[in-house]
């Protein structure tokens, strides 16, 4: 795939000056909208996850006229619901030395120096308000006997700053946002459109002015116009087919906005989570995440000998390889996500993996059970063990668990400036759908924080600044008609093929290809192979896919086909981005760029920038680089040995 390099791109919105004052400054500089005008300003929010749900609710509270969209049957089911671990906030309630600055520092470093300092600092500042807001809404966070909020340390952080609600933090936070949203629906400020899928963005006179959606129940294609559009449609990890994301997660909303001119930043940054339940058969439809906390007491190992077929219990200790403890004696089983993931892949590549297909490693609680007793282990991990047994049919008290890494989160997304505005004026992007705050690797419990920071606190201010110039008048009819036509013809094309393969079978094949060639470890060779293979497969898709039924009804095959079509295009861009970025950083590991000990090696000289891709209809995307500068945190190589 060819590409050209375009001009540099800059974030012109972030104020200058001391980092602590920038957000204050921006807030003060932001124009305010006259309250009487707010009702006349229409905003579309696509997505009802933590980001979209909180944004739509807050914009409604402020008095704007909001339309909110999601593809599920109710806003409460957005994928944010599945987040387990917790949410970070620099409250320093423990007095253990945490501070806004430390959260900022950890996030920049954790992101392997590929995120903007200004954005991350603001995120850390706002994190504090999120917890206040959630508690006031009635989110039942875990508490201590004194009645105060409990926290835990998470994802390798040295301070205890993660607030949680048992293993269902995402659910509880989302329900808080959902309830706030429904309150606005009742108040008439938000109109809710469930089972509606956004299929295109309307751009008129250089501004984002609306969306084309399909009513998934009747099949009707609808036009919705507005003064601004907010995308909060989540991540695109499902490009790998198998991931921990919900089945419906897709790239359609952001991809089609990309086709309309929004730049796509760092598409190749993918986070792989080390502790998931491995694939068990060819019918597998998704992967299930198991909390990382299991690594606190479980020991990871594989047999020393290749192809050792013995049952795990029959393998004596001296024939086991506790490889994390061996390679990383200081951190042992607690090394960061990307390192643990890659180590697992390496031992499996050596042929020492366990379970079906040799794609798994043991996570063994035998020693913990001997040391702490079965009851103590059960108290700590009982629900996780049960979940494991439910899925695999194996009892982890007797047989070690088998785990394997799986795609979990995508740091890349649409490029936005400090105001969360994309390169299309009036198109704002929040939550996992944008690229803004996590650099090349996201820390545990930071996605929830970012989604809510964007939705409750940042967007409502910055969007107001944009809307202060509105309303922007009638939308050019031609632009609307053109977008609608494009959507209709794509649907017609999909239905017309009438081939012999289902959309799912293509998706599965694409996913496998991405996992093999653009997964945990990428090489120039593998990426080139993928870039050859993807267009072929896409061609076959458009010639041989079979979509049953019609467009005028609830048609889940048609929905799927549309999403797979977009995944093909995105996959290609991901591979291209991964190929061009010939360094390793965070979740992006290029085998060519490692140090003598096999650790990721950054190349700050050439790659301390954001890669923002501009779509080009002729298939030759344009790369715009946004240089990254670090005034506060000094760039260093990570080391966990």
């Amino acid at each position, binding site marked *: 795939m060819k590409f050209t390099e375009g001009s540099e791109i800059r974030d012109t919105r972030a104020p200058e000056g001391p980092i602590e004052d920038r957000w204050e400054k921006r807030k003060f500089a932001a124009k305010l909208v006259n309250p009487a005008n707010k009702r006349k300003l229409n905003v579309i929010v696509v997505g009802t996850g933590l980001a979209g749900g909180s944004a739509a609710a807050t914009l409604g509270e402020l008095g704007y006229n909001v339309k909110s969209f999601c593809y599920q049957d109710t806003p409460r*089911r957005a994928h944010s*619901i599945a987040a387990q671990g917790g949410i970070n906030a620099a409250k320093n309630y423990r007095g253990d030395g945490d501070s806004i600055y430390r959260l900022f520092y950890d996030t920049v470093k954790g992101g392997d120096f590929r995120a903007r300092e200004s954005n991350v600092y603001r995120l850390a500042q706002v994190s504090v308000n999120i917890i*206040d807001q959630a508690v006031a809404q009635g989110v039942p966070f875990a508490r201590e006997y004194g009645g105060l909020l409990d926290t835990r340390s998470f994802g390798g952080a040295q301070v205890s700053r993660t607030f949680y609600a048992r293993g269902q933090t995402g659910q509880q936070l989302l329900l808080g946002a959902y309830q706030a949203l*429904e309150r606005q629906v*009742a108040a008439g400020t938000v109109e809710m459109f469930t089972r509606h899928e956004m299929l295109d963005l309307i751009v008129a006179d250089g501004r984002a002015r609306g969306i084309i959606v399909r009513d998934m129940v009747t099949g009707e294609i609808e036009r919705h116009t507005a003064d601004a559009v907010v995308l909060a449609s989540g991540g695109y990890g499902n490009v790998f087919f198998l991931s921990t994301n919900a089945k419906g997660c897709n790239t359609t909303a952001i991809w089609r906005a990309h086709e309309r001119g929004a730049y796509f930043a760092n598409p190749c940054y993918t986070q792989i989570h080390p502790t998931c339940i491995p694939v068990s058969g060819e019918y597998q439809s998704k992967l299930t995440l198991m909390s990382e906390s299991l690594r606190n007491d479980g020991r990871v190992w594989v047999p020393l000998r290749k192809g050792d077929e013995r049952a795990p219990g029959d393998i004596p200790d001296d024939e086991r390889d506790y490889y994390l403890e061996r390679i990383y004696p200081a951190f042992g089983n607690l090394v960061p996500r990307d390192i643990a993931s890659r180590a697992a892949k390496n031992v499996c590549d050596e042929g020492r993996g366990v379970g079906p297909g040799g794609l798994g490693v043991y996570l063994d609680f035998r020693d913990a059970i001997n040391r702490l007793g079965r009851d103590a282990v059960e108290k700590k991990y009982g629900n996780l063990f049960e979940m494991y047994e439910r899925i695999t049919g194996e009892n982890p008290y007797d047989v070690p668990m088998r785990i394997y890494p799986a795609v979990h989160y995508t740091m890349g997304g649409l490029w936005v400036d400090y105001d969360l505005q994309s390169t299309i004026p009036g198109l704002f992007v929040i939550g996992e759908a944008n690229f803004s705050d996590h650099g090349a690797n996201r820390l545990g419990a930071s996605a929830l924080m970012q989604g809510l920071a964007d939705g409750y606190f940042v967007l409502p201010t910055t969007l107001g600044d944009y809307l202060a110039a509105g309303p922007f008048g009638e939308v050019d009819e031609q632009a609307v008609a053109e977008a609608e036509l494009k959507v209709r013809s794509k649907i017609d094309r999909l239905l017309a093929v009438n081939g012999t393969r289902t959309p799912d079978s293509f998706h599965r094949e694409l996913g496998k290809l991405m996992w093999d060639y653009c997964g945990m470890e990428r090489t120039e060779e593998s990426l080139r192979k993928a870039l050859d293979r993807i267009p072929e497969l896409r061609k076959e898709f458009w010639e041989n896919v079979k979509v049953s039924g019609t467009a005028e009804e609830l048609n889940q095959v048609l929905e799927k086909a549309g999403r797979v079509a977009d995944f093909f295009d995105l996959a290609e861009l991901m591979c291209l981005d991964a190929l061009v970025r010939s360094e390793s950083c965070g979740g992006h590991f290029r085998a060519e760029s490692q140090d003598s000990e096999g650790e990721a090696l950054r190349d700050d000289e050439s790659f301390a920038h954001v890669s923002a891709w501009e779509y080009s209809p002729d298939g030759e995307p344009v790369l715009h680089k946004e240089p990254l500068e670090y005034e506060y945190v000094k760039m260093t190589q990570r080391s966990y040995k």
Partner: protein
Amino acid sequence: MSFLEMLDVLNERLILEGDDPIAFDHDCREGICGMCGMVINGVAHGEQRATTTCQLHMRHFEDNATITIEPWRAAPFPVVKDLVVDRSAFDRIIQAGGFVSVPAGSAPDAHSIPVRKEDADAAFDAATCIGCGACVAACPNGSASLFTAAKITHLSLLPQGQPERLSRAKAMVDQMDAEGFGGCTNTGECTAVCPKGIPLDTIAQMNTDYLKANAK
């Protein structure tokens, strides 16, 4: 293979044979989003307790067994297609009052009001409802009491929920009636199939709040 994967396989075949695949709702496939739900052999979410449909596995079914699958059946949950039903009535019950009125940015510091751990834990237990609708599907009266009570109880147990406590209970219960759900007769069918094990006490809590609201 999970139950839904079995349906996936079946649908793949139906598509290739030129038939209409069976429409069914699902999303997270790990028992938390509440999107999936069908009555399997006469039991909402199947016979395994405390489990959503997507968490069922085929190894719990006998080979060659005939499985009867039906959608949730209740007037307020109209069938959209095959196994897909419209549960927006639940959203309207929440709209009636299932929230704490607190606009973003107006909240006091999270530690300004301590909450007894027992209350926080009990509130959490009620708050785990995933809004799947199995309680309605299983209830011989087609009542939505368990769902409604779970939310009322969650907010009733927390200090933050107190100011609107009674008006919330009244508005939500009345909306539940308005949607056409049946009345509760404490049969306990709901809690038996509830994937999150929401207990019947929540209904007692709802009744208390509703009575008080009406006595005022």
